[in-house]
């Protein structure tokens, strides 16, 4: 008993001493060390590029912290409130609404001089992308990969039944009714803001008014858009995908879903988890109403420099390096995501025929969609608004409320939040 106790005691003391002496890595003294956070995880496009950067810039050392999406989000909340913030962070663009109004990120206008690797910003990005990295006339991020929604559809089933990818909402109803058999081959309904706004934007509606003080998604255009979306459920043309339905990829594999709206990263998911379906899927622009226009949410990954960073010039150098066209390609090659730089999207690498998608060039579809996409409003209360919309879409799917009622209630919640 005593032997064990003293062994434990010794171990404790050893651990404490080791810890207090600080068994951390040695930090370089004369160089500038940049702390970079990367949430791409296993398939990071950034890590392979670090060595070359350090060779080109011997005075800068990169300390790369590879985390996952969840960890980065939670850790950012804690660390940004302290004095030791990282210098470069990959953030999800949907986090900007809560950080931007609090001045968490450096205005890159001065550092960049309005240019990215010598090219003016408005030539580097599409207008929507530019809008997404701008807040209060400041440029607070560089868009690294982008996310917009387009229609994924079972081209093999379409061919079998002699159907064309739907261009209008009427087409969608038409096509869906011919496809659906026994609760299979449906269009996917997901209760969240990303999917709801697709229809709202397409019908000319919006989320908030010009100066972001009032909700406008309970107005006629938005309401009729969501009513159309909900009508697909009522006509049994769409399947309400909830957590009880399982993983989306499973529904895709067993045929419950034959059409769905999602972003370019889903191409990677299909290839990894459903390799047997190669050649069965294609992408097309999401259908729009007769007198509507294309529209989608715009998100993705941004590279930011927290305001409390002590090495802003060096951080900007690293960001510019990552945004070089040849380095942006890594985003696609390694991470399977969609690079945001216009020059790269027009390059031949991303416009090659993709055998998984039946020889189609899917990136062109997403690039086209990016031109008409815009981000969610950058208001501090975005989390509340997004939640209110999700709740409304759930209530609609469950049949608890009419579309008008559900959206009105969500609008009330939103206005209350905005008024505070």
């Amino acid at each position, binding site marked *: 008993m005593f032997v064990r106790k003293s062994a434990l005691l010794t171990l404790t003391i050893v651990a404490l001493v080791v810890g207090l002496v600080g068994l951390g890595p040695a930090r370089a003294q004369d160089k500038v060390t940049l702390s970079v956070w990367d949430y791409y995880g296993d398939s990071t496009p950034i890590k392979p590029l670090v060595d070359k950067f350090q060779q080109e810039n011997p005075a800068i050392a990169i300390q790369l912290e590879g985390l996952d999406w969840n960890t980065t989000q939670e850790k950012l909340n804690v660390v940004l409130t302290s004095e030791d913030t990282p210098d470069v962070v990959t953030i999800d663009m949907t986090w900007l609404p*809560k950080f931007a109004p*609090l001045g*968490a990120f450096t205005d890159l206008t001065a550092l960049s001089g309005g240019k990215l690797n010598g090219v003016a910003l408005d030539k580097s990005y599409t207008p929507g992308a530019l809008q997404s990295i701008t807040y209060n006339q400041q440029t607070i991020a560089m868009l690294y990969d982008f996310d917009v929604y387009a229609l994924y559809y079972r081209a093999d089933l379409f061919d079998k039944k002699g159907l064309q990818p739907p261009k209008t909402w009427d087409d969608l109803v038409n096509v869906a009714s011919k496809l659906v058999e026994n609760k299979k081959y449906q269009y996917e309904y997901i209760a969240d803001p990303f999917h709801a706004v697709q229809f709202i934007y397409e019908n000319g509606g919006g989320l908030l008014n010009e100066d972001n003080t009032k909700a406008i998604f309970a107005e006629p255009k938005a309401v009729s858009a969501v009513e159309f979306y909900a009508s697909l459920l009522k006509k049994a043309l769409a399947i309400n995908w909830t957590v009880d339905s399982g993983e989306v990829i499973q529904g895709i594999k067993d045929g419950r879903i034959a059409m769905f709206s999602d972003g370019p990263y889903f191409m990677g998911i299909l290839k990894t988890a459903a390799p047997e379906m190669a050649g069965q899927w294609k992408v097309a622009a999401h259908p729009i109403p007769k007198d509507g226009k294309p529209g989608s949410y715009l998100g993705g990954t941004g590279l930011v420099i927290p305001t409390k960073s002590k090495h802003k010039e060096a951080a900007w150098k690293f960001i510019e390096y990552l945004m070089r066209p040849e380095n942006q390609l890594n985003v696609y090659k390694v991470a399977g995501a969609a690079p945001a730089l216009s020059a790269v999207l027009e390059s031949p690498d991303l416009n090659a025929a993709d055998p998984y998608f039946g020889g189609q060039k899917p990136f062109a579809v997403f690039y086209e969609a990016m031109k008409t996409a815009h981000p969610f409003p950058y208001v501090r209360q975005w989390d*509340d608004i997004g939640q209110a919309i999700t709740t409304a879409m*759930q209530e609609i799917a469950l049949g608890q409320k009419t579309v008008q009622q559900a959206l009105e209630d969500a609008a009330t919640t939103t206005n209350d939040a905005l008024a505070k």
Partner: protein
Amino acid sequence: MTARLAPPITAIRKYYLGYLFIAVPVASSIIFLLIPMLTSLIWSFTDFNGLQPPHFVGLGNYVELFTRDKLFIKALQNTAIFVVLSLGAGPVLGLLTALMLNQNVRLRALFRTAYFLPVMTSMVVVATLWRMLYNESGLFNTILSSLGLGTVGWLSDPNWALVSVVIASVWQGFGYETVIFLSALQTIPGELYEAATIDGAGALAKFRFITLPSLRSVILFIYVIGIIGGAQVFDQVFVMTQGGPVNSTTTIVFYLYRRFQDLRLGYASAIAYILFLILVGFSFVQWRVLGERD
């Protein structure tokens, strides 16, 4: 009680061991618990968002939580339901299984490990497996429909979601109670039972008059910790339902977490301290009712 009449030096010598033994935990509590708690308590009276200087708002956060925050009230209700259901089932299952495992059976170690395995398995695994079980065409619905009872939207029906989370929770967690009860049962001297047998007592009488009273301390512990822990339920909700559908599984700590993620540190701290006051109240009552007499 001669201690009180002893001269001061004797008193110090008498008591110093008590203080010495508790010195490290007390210091640790002060530095790593009490000081952070005080900090966040102060924040609860401000609009602190972590990045900008805070402004004092007095009781503003607290008032708003009770008068204008419908989601908070819903979270209180959901949490209450969760605690009542899980504390009803968990300790009972724990005691039953501990009694079984305490028998002189072969392969005891194997059975004990089996019961504790869910506790040791990560919540993500447990949640994923239960999601599969709860699936619309999963095991439970298959059984139900083969009995002609139709299917249930276990996690997608707002009327069922909370109960489903409770079931998965209790299943994953009652192993805790099993282990504690088992250890406690080990400390009951076998002679007591032998004497009772000689006196002609049956199994039920032995349970009522020997086992249960001996477990009193441990039962108190389980219920106090159980309410404190149950009221702070978070992991299961985070992994299984993210608070939905229609906020039917949003618990107090889950709501608090959302507010923290939204950088509303002052508001979230207020939520925490309302929960704190509730728990202090409960613990006090429990101590009086179940507590030891010393």
